[in-house]
């Protein structure tokens, strides 16, 4: 269960305000601060990998440039588009939730799920192609391009670690979205208020922003 969504299942009063809060206003404010605090930890999470990326790209720029040519820019571009579109749908979903338009909320949430799913499918094809071409780090790794094979392996280690961690976040997003959509569908009182969807929206935009950094760093490397 996503820690940031399921907070009010069993309180008995109809407003779905947890017992430790005064009213829905305080609860919402606290939820949003909690979510932003959580996103700070997420930034630190990805920060480590970005730091490692900067270090190695600075050290092994030439080989990184050669290795990045192997990645499929077209698929990366499509995925970027898909994910950005999903963020638009997410924003529309939050708006519908604010306007208490349940049907449209559900529609937009499902649209986001579809986009996220499409993203993962494209990612799957990309990964399979890399594995088939022995471009996955480990005992089967082969490098035919110019430059050191070890350095290329580090490029692919970073590629798989960073897009992998991002992919895990997308997966968690799909699961949480599924739960949220189900809650909206059955008129669960936890989603009477727009806040759970707003909170998930913040998470989803964060995942999107991470990809916006990953895409140019891996797929669109300038020569030099």
């Amino acid at each position: 269960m996503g820690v940031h969504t399921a907070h009010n299942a069993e309180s008995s009063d109809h407003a779905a305000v947890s017992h430790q809060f005064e009213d829905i206003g305080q609860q919402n404010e606290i939820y949003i601060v909690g979510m932003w605090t959580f996103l700070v930890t997420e930034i630190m999470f990805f920060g480590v990998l970005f730091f490692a990326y900067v270090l190695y790209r600075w050290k092994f720029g030439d080989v990184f440039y050669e290795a990045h040519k192997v990645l499929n820019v077209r698929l990366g571009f499509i995925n970027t588009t898909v994910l950005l579109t999903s963020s638009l749908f997410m924003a529309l979903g939050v708006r519908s939730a604010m306007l208490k338009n349940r049907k449209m909320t559900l529609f937009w949430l499902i649209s986001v799920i579809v986009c996220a799913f499409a993203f993962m499918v494209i990612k799957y094809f990309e990964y399979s192609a890399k594995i088939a071409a022995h471009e996955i780090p480990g005992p089967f790794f082969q490098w035919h391009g110019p430059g050191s094979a070890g350095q290329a392996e580090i490029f692919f280690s970073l590629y798989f670690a960073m897009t992998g961690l991002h992919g895990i976040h997308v997966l968690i997003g799909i699961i949480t979205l599924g739960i949220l959509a189900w809650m909206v569908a059955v008129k669960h009182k936890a989603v009477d208020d727009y806040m759970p969807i707003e909170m998930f929206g913040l998470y989803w935009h964060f995942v999107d922003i991470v990809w916006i950094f990953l895409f140019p760093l891996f797929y669109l490397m300038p020569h030099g």
Partner: protein
Amino acid sequence: MKEETNSMPAHDAPQVNYLNWSHTVKSWLLTGDHKRIAMLYLISVSAFFLVGSAAAGLIRLELTSPRGVLLENETYNKIFTMHGVVMVFFFLIPAIPAILGNFLVPLMIGARDLAFPRLNLLSWYVYMAGGVCAVIAMMTGGVDTGWTFYTPYSSMYSKSQVVWAICGAFFAGFSSIFTGINFIVTIHKMRAPGLTWFRLPLFVWAQYATSVIMILGTPVIAITLLLVVVERTLHIGIFDPKLGGDPVLFQHLFWFYSHPAVYIMILPSMGVISELMACFSRKRVFGYSFVAFSSLAIAALGFLVWGHHMFVSSQSMYQGMVFSIISTVVAVPSAIKVFNWTATMYKGSIRLETPMYYALGFLGLFLIGGLTGLYLSSMATDIHLHDTYFVVAHFHYVMVGGTIMGYLGGLHFWWPKMTGRLYSEFWGRLSAILVFLGFNATFMPQFVVGYLGMPRRYHYYYLMPEFQIWHVLSSFGSILLAVGFMLPAFYLTWSYLKGPKAGPNPWNATGLEWTTQSPPMSHNFDEPPIVTEEAYAYDAEAEEAEDIEEAPAAKPAHAPKPAGG
């Protein structure tokens, strides 16, 4: 929430509180009550402390002879690794935030609970999951990397259960992230009416600073350790030197968290000491805002000093110089605190009760720990002292002398609030004295033997048999220390079961937590409290008296206090 009529003898029948409203296992394991979660943490953290102490005992036994007593080399490595991993990740880091902080932060700010009770409960479960992983690592052969998990040994060569141990640390890290998020949001958004930032008890300030470190630092170690795991299992290796990777990058990332982690341990303890100093000197804390901001300063500076762990691992000299200077600067906010506590005691009406014994012990031990830290933050002396027992002694003075003294002091101070019972002052004082003496006897010799050149983590020292006397002294001290730690386990358990009842405020202390019953009811306060004065309004009466009489002798006269000095 129906009352369970249980067969338990209801020895404190009338008052319903967070402990006795229900005795079912379910009511404990699914609780959202921050006080119950604190108690769950108290039990589990104490259990891990026992495990870590047992490992420490084995280490001390082994080192009494230059050729070892009992263990093989490999086993010795595993034992000190276990000691480090368990003590750091499962005792020191959660001890004060997760037990005292969990219990006290909502009470101190007048809230009904933390902002996210279920997240709080989840943090305990995640902590326990980490604990299970660590136990599995021990049971299936142990880990021999040291608690630092340095690559490439941990990622490529070690044949031991690195993955399980790292999972343990990883989960423990998440538990601490959850606690941090909860505290930050709660302290920002749930303070009682009138409780402005500068009326907050300093303990809350310290928890806040700690939480900032927890949420900024812990994700870094989590992902770094995860990278070691994927390197070991999936060969996705970015630290692998065979590929051109940089194992020192691991050290940078590791210490980026693990140095601030020392402040995760010490800052809450400093918060406890501020409370104790004020209450048992019957005075407001001298320089409140300096003490509050020094916590934040330590938290901020703590992120800029990690390089002092790497003076001898391929860091450039200039980098070393910068880290050396910033590390030395940390002494400033630390000293502000120590001076302010001393000034708090000055002309106070000091009452020497058990928590104050611990607080005074803290001052002594932290002073030694802090000052020896300066030897290690200066590059030139560090080259000599690096990786010797001097370092071991230094960080034990800070982490044990600092954290455990604060933790035990706080536990004794708030024990009547947590359980509603008093404990025996005699045994309390005795254990405080034993811990202080035993601690010094254990670690003072290690400064000497480290200075003489005994490296840390060594099993044998038969080429230098003259070191034996220091090791024997240290091991003897550790027995004393163990007795000092065991005593509270007994008399506090006795107090919980049979101790005399404590009123709501046995120490006559200020602070919202003392205004409610002991132990508090589930929702903490009958009426939401409203705060109209500063945190440490201890000397209000005395000041009035002084204004009239201009005579400091008037101080002992304001006397509704139970115990004499």
